[in-house]
Structures are given as structure tokens and as C-alpha cells.
């Protein structure tokens, strides 16, 4: 019964989405305010309906209702509750429902919080947003309906893939979709602006909070995925340049560029055409990621995605939305008025450099991901594009970007004083130089790039700190004055500082773990003591254990340093009951200097096991850095100026009319 309600709500949602698409845009065309307002109520109604559908499916999962085909295929009654719930989005159909739910959530949020938007812009935004819902709801109902019944209902389900049964991974998809789908708002705003033909700094001001929210969500989503890969896949890797990872990374890169270019548009009324294009591209990349992952073109082994009909449908959505938006862009871009000019050495100039480097990096990832597909389609040659390619093309673009990051916030708008900025960054430069020299003297004959890489991270960190120090007149004014200034700084200023600081911290982690990772693979007998990276690890054999839906073999290791016990590590091998799958759980001891990471291998003779020992220096900083970035976004979002609303039209008109020099 509940499932039928959910099914019905889903179909009703499609009807509402259709109304949301057609009526407000029509109303905006003929200036009918009543029709335009329908968008607001339709967007909210649509969210409620899809929420009902989502709750219905969740109830089916929680109660293990195997009369639903989707539940039967992806759930099992013996699963812990957390994984029954996360199982809802652990499969193609359910994850699509989550996708549409978040889409409706964002649409509903614009309807509710967008009170200060001009009515025609709001109507168009909600209309475009509704059309995306229509496309995905149709797709779902026609090819991927999660509410299909099974008769007779089986007694037991097939179970969720055990490797998905992990807390970090449970919340990974909602965050990821929050990012993907959140960028749809920027897209809808861009298309709406092209329809109305009016683009001004206020536009950027409305779009930026939504883009920032999506960006934060995607940041956390990607970080969670990487964190999961690190401890679950069992060799301490955290990024593999896998096509599915790239599919989430490309919208992140382009979304990052969008955040920066929208800043120029908001503050200086420049880069307007580019910002609109970037908004369209960012969501197109999100759609493309969805297509790549679900269509089966990437790797023939994506289990949910082998249905070519689905792939074609998503390709259709991609072509219609991206193609349509780009065509609209091409026909309208000429009409958009160019904004103010600026000298190359200015805040705007720095942000253009940021956009240039990030979008080129994004293009490199794009080409590396799609080239093998294109080549095979054209010539039939099969080649691989793996991590070495991405490291060689993506890496070099990041170096100038990171070098430039500290300069950006110091430069004045319109025309900056590069020498003055260099002077203000001198402390950061000195600290960086000291760290590089110290790193060289400690690492000795280690990899020569590593100290420079560390220096890059330190440079970005101290560059960010210098900016705040300068703004509050640290060491140049009395402490009272400094504190007064600190309090009066807008939160968004701290937002940028923290985001940049996070990047620097992450760079330290990336450099540390990729260049100084230590590894040892040994046959270890019970009672044997292994000396590794300054720790002594005593192997006490292996003990069996029983989990809720798996059996496991737990290796016991006692870690001591200088005779003192530090921790006990229990790397294990699990065998899940349904479906029958083995997973490894690494034993990890986390310290600031680095992680001790131990993986239990196969049993050899007489109770001896293969054990792999890794020491991953500074690896925590990768995820701590992303958290700091997230926090920066949060600070910026909580800034009153963003919430309290956009400037009224009259003021905008004045800014635009100001004579450019």
C-alpha cells in the first residue's frame, strides 16, 4: 500500500513538474504575474510529492518488503539498519530517486528563499528547474522505476554489496548529488538570464550562495569517497584517477572556477558572458558524469549500467539540456553587454588566471577520461589512460595556480600593485624558504621534488594567513585595534582565507604521502616482531570472529615504540554472507606525522601470514584540508550580506551606468 502511494506520488510529481515547466515561463513571456507565481507553489508541491515517494521506498527497505523488485535485488533482512537505509540509494533506481529528490529540494528552496528575486527571473529559473525534473522523472518512470512489484514475493533479498556497507560510503552519495544537482540551480539561473536577456551583478549575487552550497556538498562528497577508498580498498591509495572519480572531479573543478568568476561578476560587473558559460558547463559536466557512470560506456563492468536504453536516454537528456543551453547562449551572448575593464595585474586579472588554469586542468581531465572512448569509436584502437597521464598533465597546471593563490586576495580590484603585494607576502615567502631548506636537509637523498611540494603547501597556508594578518593590522597596531578589526571583518573574508588555507593543508598531505610513503611486505609468523618506520609491531596470530552479517579473521598486532605500548591494530579479512564477498579492513593507527597502515594478507604455512605494512606520512592532512575548505565555504555562506538579499534594481542600474575608465 505504502509503495503504491509512493508510486502514485512519483507520477503526480511528473505532472506537477510539467506544470512547473510550462506555466511560469509562459507567464514570464506574456507578463502574467499569476502564471509566474504558479512556479513557486509547483516547486514546493513537487518537492513534497517526491519526498513522499522517497519515504515510501525507504519504508519498503526498512521493513524488507521483498515484493518490490528493487528491494529484493538490493537488500537483505539481516543487514544492519544503517545499511538498509543507505541501500535505498545503493542502486541505480533508488539513487536516481535521491537525485530527483535533491533536485526538487533545491527547486523548492529557490521558491521559498528567492522572495527578493524579480518575478520574471524567478519564474524562468523555476521553469528551467522544472524541465530538468520532467526529464529525469520521465527517465525514471519509463526505464528505472523503483516501485515495480514482484509476484510472488521472495522470502529473502539478494543483499547489498558488502563493500558498500560502510558508514562513510552511506552518506557519500547524498553529498555528491547535493553537489551535482546543486549546480542545476546555477544552470537554471544562467538559462533564465539568457531568456530574459538581462544579466547584471545582482545575478551573480543570487547565484553564488547556491553554487557555494553545491560546491561544499561536492567537496565533502568527494572527500568521503576518497577517505573510504583509503581505508577500505587496502593499499592506502586515496585517489586513482579512475573515470568514475574524474566524473565527480570535473564538475568540482568547473564549479570552483564558477565561484571565482561569479565573484568578478558580482563585484565588478565583468566576465559576465564567461560566467554564464561556466554555469552551463558545470551542470553539463554533472550530467555527463551521470551519463558516463550509468550508461555503461566507460567500463563494461559497471553492473547497474549495462542497459543501453538507459544510456541513450541520459545521453538524450545531456544533448537536449547542454546543447539547448549552449545554442541559446550562442544566439544571445552577443546581446549581453560587456562589463568594466581592468588591468592585467588586478584582482580581476588574478581571478582570470585562476579560471584559465582550473578550466584547462578540467579540460585535461575531460580529455583523459573520454579519449580512450573516442579513439576506440573512431579507429577501434584500445588504449588506456591512467594515473601517469593525469599526473603529467594535471600536475603542472596546479603549480602556477598554487603559486598564484596567495597573490589573488591581496590585489586590489581594477589595478593592483604587484610589488606592494610581494612585500606583504614577504613573511610567507621567508617561512616557505625555511621549510624547503629544512625539508631538504632532513630528507637528504629522498625525492628532490618533495621539499618543493611541501614549500608550495606552506606558501599557500602562510599566504592565506598573511592576508588576514594584514587586514587586521597584526603587529602593526595595538592588540585592541587588531581584535576590533578581527571582529568587524565580514565572514566572507574569512571564508576565502579558510578555503585557501584548506588547499594548502591538503597539498601538504598529498605531497607527504605520495613522496615519502614507506612500504614493507613480509611473511610474519606469530610472535614475530617487525620493526617498521620507528614502530615495533608484534604479530600475535589470527583469531576468528562473527559479525552481524559476516565472519572475519582478525590479525592481532601490538604496536610499541621504545618499549611502550602505543596501540593494538586489528586488520581483518571479512567474508560476508549475502552476497558472498570478501573484504579487507585495514588496521590503521593515525598520528599527526602519518598513518601506520597494516593489511592482513593470505595465510602461508604454519600460521604465518603475508602482512603489508605502510607508513603514509601526513596523509590525514588531505581530508583535514578538505574539511577546512568546507568550513571556509560555510563561513562565507553564513555571511549576512549573502543572506540579507540582493541589491534592489535601482542600485544595480546605477553601478552599470558608472562610466568605465
Amino acid at each position, binding site marked *: 500500500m505504502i509503495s503504491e502511494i509512493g508510486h502514485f506520488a512519483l507520477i503526480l510529481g511528473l505532472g506537477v513538474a510539467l506544470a512547473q515547466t510550462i506555466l511560469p515561463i509562459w507567464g514570464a513571456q506574456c507578463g502574467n504575474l499569476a502564471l509566474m507565481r504558479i512556479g513557486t507553489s509547483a516547486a514546493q508541491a513537487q518537492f513534497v510529492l517526491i519526498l513522499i515517494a522517497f519515504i515510501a521506498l525507504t519504508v519498503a527497505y526498512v521493513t524488507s518488503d521483498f515484493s518490490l523488485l528493487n528491494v529484493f535485488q538490493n537488500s537483505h533482512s539481516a543487514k544492519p539498519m544503517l545499511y538498509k537505509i543507505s541501500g535505498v540509494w545503493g542502486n541505480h533506481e533508488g539513487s536516481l530517486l535521491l537525485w530527483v529528490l535533491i533536485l526538487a529540494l533545491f527547486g523548492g528552496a529557490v521558491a521559498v528563499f528567492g522572495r527578493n528575486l524579480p518575478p520574471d527571473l524567478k519564474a524562468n529559473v523555476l521553469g528551467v528547474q522544472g524541465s530538468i525534473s520532467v526529464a529525469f522523472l520521465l527517465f525514471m518512470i519509463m526505464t528505472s522505476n523503483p516501485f515495480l512489484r514482484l509476484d510472488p514475493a521472495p522470502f529473502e533479498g539478494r543483499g547489498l554489496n558488502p563493500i558498500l556497507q560502510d558508514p562513510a560510503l552511506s552518506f557519500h552519495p547524498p553529498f555528491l548529488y547535493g553537489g551535482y544537482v546543486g549546480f542545476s540551480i546555477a544552470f537554471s539561473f544562467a538559462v533564465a538570464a539568457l531568456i530574459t536577456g538581462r544579466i547584471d551583478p545582482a545575478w551573480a549575487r543570487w547565484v553564488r550562495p547556491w553554487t557555494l552550497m553545491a560546491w561544499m556538498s561536492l567537496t565533502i562528497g568527494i572527500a568521503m569517497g576518497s577517505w*573510504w577508498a583509503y581505508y577500505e*580498498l587496502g593499499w592506502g591509495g586515496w585517489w586513482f584517477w579512475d573515470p568514475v572519480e574524474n566524473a565527480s572531479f570535473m564538475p568540482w573543478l568547473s564549479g570552483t572556477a564558477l565561484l571565482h568568476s561569479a565573484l568578478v561578476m558580482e563585484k565588478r560587473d565583468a566576465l559576465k558572458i564567461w560566467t554564464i558559460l561556466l554555469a552551463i558547463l558545470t551542470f553539463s559536466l554533472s550530467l555527463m558524469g551521470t551519463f558516463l557512470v550509468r550508461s555503461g560506456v566507460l567500463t563494461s563492468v559497471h553492473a547497474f549500467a549495462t542497459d543501453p536504453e538507459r544510456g541513450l536516454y541520459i545521453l538524450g537528456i545531456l544533448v537536449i539540456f547542454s546543447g539547448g543551453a549552449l545554442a541559446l547562449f550562442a544566439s544571445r551572448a552577443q546581446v549581453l553587454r560587456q562589463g568594466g575593464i581592468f588591468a592585467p595585474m588586478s584582482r580581476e586579472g588574478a581571478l582570470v588566471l585562476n579560471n584559465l588554469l582550473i578550466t584547462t586542468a578540467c579540460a585535461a581531465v575531460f580529455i*583523459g577520461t573520454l579519449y580512450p572512448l573516442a579513439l576506440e569509436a573512431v579507429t577501434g584502437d584500445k588504449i588506456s589512460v591512467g594515473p601517469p597521464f593525469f599526473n603529467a598533465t594535471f600536475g603542472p597546471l596546479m603549480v602556477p595556480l598554487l603559486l598564484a593563490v596567495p597573490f589573488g586576495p591581496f590585489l586590489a580590484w581594477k589595478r593592483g600593485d604587484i610589488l606592494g603585494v610581494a612585500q606583504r607576502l614577504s613573511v610567507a615567502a621567508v617561512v616557505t624558504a625555511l621549510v624547503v631548506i629544512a625539508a631538504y636537509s632532513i630528507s637528504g637523498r629522498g625525492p628532490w621534488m618533495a621539499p618543493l611540494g611541501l614549500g608550495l603547501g606552506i606558501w599557500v597556508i602562510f599566504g592565506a594567513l598573511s592576508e588576514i594578518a594584514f587586514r587586521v593590522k597584526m603587529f602593526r597596531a595595538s592588540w585592541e585595534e587588531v581584535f576590533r578589526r578581527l571582529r568587524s571583518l565580514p565572514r566572507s573574508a574569512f571564508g576565502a582565507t579558510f578555503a585557501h588555507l584548506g588547499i594548502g593543508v591538503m597539498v601538504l598531505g598529498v605531497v607527504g604521502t605520495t613522496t615519502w610513503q614507506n612500504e614493507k611486505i613480509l611473511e610474519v609468523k606469530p610472535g614475530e616482531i617487525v620493526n617498521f618506520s620507528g614502530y615495533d609491531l608484534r604479530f600475535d596470530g589470527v583469531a576468528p570472529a562473527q559479525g552481524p552479517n559476516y565472519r572475519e579473521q582478525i590479525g592481532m598486532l601490538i604496536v610499541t615504540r621504545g618499549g611502550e605500548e602505543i596501540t593494538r591494530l586489528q586488520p581483518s579479512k571479512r567474508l560476508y554472507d549475502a552476497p558472498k564477498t570478501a573484504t579487507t579492513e585495514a588496521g590503521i593507527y593515525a598520528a599527526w606525522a602519518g598513518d601506520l597502515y597494516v593489511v592482513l594478507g593470505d595465510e602461508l604455512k604454519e600460521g604465518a601470514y603475508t602482512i603489508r605494512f605502510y607508513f603514509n606520512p601526513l596523509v590525514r592532512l588531505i581530508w583535514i584540508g578538505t574539511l577546512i575548505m568546507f568550513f571556509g565555504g560555510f563561513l562565507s555562506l553564513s555571511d549576512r550580506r549573502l543572506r540579507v538579499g540582493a541589491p534592489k534594481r535601482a542600485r544595480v542600474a546605477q553601478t552599470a551606468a558608472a*562610466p568605465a575608465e
Partner: protein
Amino acid sequence: MIRFFAIIWLAWLMTVPVKAVEPDEILKDPVLEARARKISVDLRCLVCQNQSIDDSNAPLARDLRILVRERLTKGDSDAQVIDFLVARYGEFVLLRPRFAPHTMILWFSAPVLFLISIFVIFTAHRRRSAEVAAAPVKALSAKEKRALKKLLRRG
């Protein structure tokens, strides 16, 4: 989402999901072993998706690792080992695509795009500056003058 689907193949591969290189494969000569590791990082495990033979625990990856080590012990250079594997399995085995006519677009499009973008930014900047410099300063309209006067009086 991404991860979720990535896992499907991973799960298939991971009947015994432990990384690569078994103790018995490791060569006695540390220099040769280091070379072997360096080569295997760039070689694809053909039955896996996007895993190097250094990372993969699949039986084929093990065979390839042993093969690489055999060739090295026989005195092959790194390039010879790689050529041997390409001759056997095709270029699909290389995670680092070769520089060749059919990969020119792959290797060069990002740098070329970068240069084109710089050119576009540069010309757009110059055109815009020239435009602004050439544009006559528009006189205020009667309405604007009135508004200005009103403001000035109030101030």
C-alpha cells in the same frame, strides 16, 4: 554515486582484496626490484578496470609481475620489457599512453587549449581596452541632469 558504481567492479575483482606483490615475487637485487616496481605501476592489469598490476591481486597481474621480473633478470632494459608486453597485449596494457600519431590529440589538446585561451584572453583584453578608450564620454541626458541637481541640492 560515482563510488557506488566503481565498487561494483571492484567487488568483482576482490575475491581476496589485498594489494599485489607477494613476498615470494620480490627479487633479491633491490635495484632490479625497484625497476620492476616502477615498470609495474605503469602497466594495466588487463582483467581489472583501471588498476595497475602493482596494485592488483588478480592472478593475471601476478603473472605479469613475475614476467616483468623474469625479463629484467634476463637483462632486458625497461623499454624492452614494455615493448615485449605491448607486443603481446597491445597498447591497452600501458597506463601511460605513448606519444604517437594516434595519441597526439590526447597529449596536446590541454596545452594547446591553454595557449589558445591565453591568446583569446589577451586579444579580448586589448579589444576591450581599445573600445573603452575610443568610446566617447556620453553626456548626461536631461533627466539625469535633473536627478543630479536634485541630489546635489539635497547634499
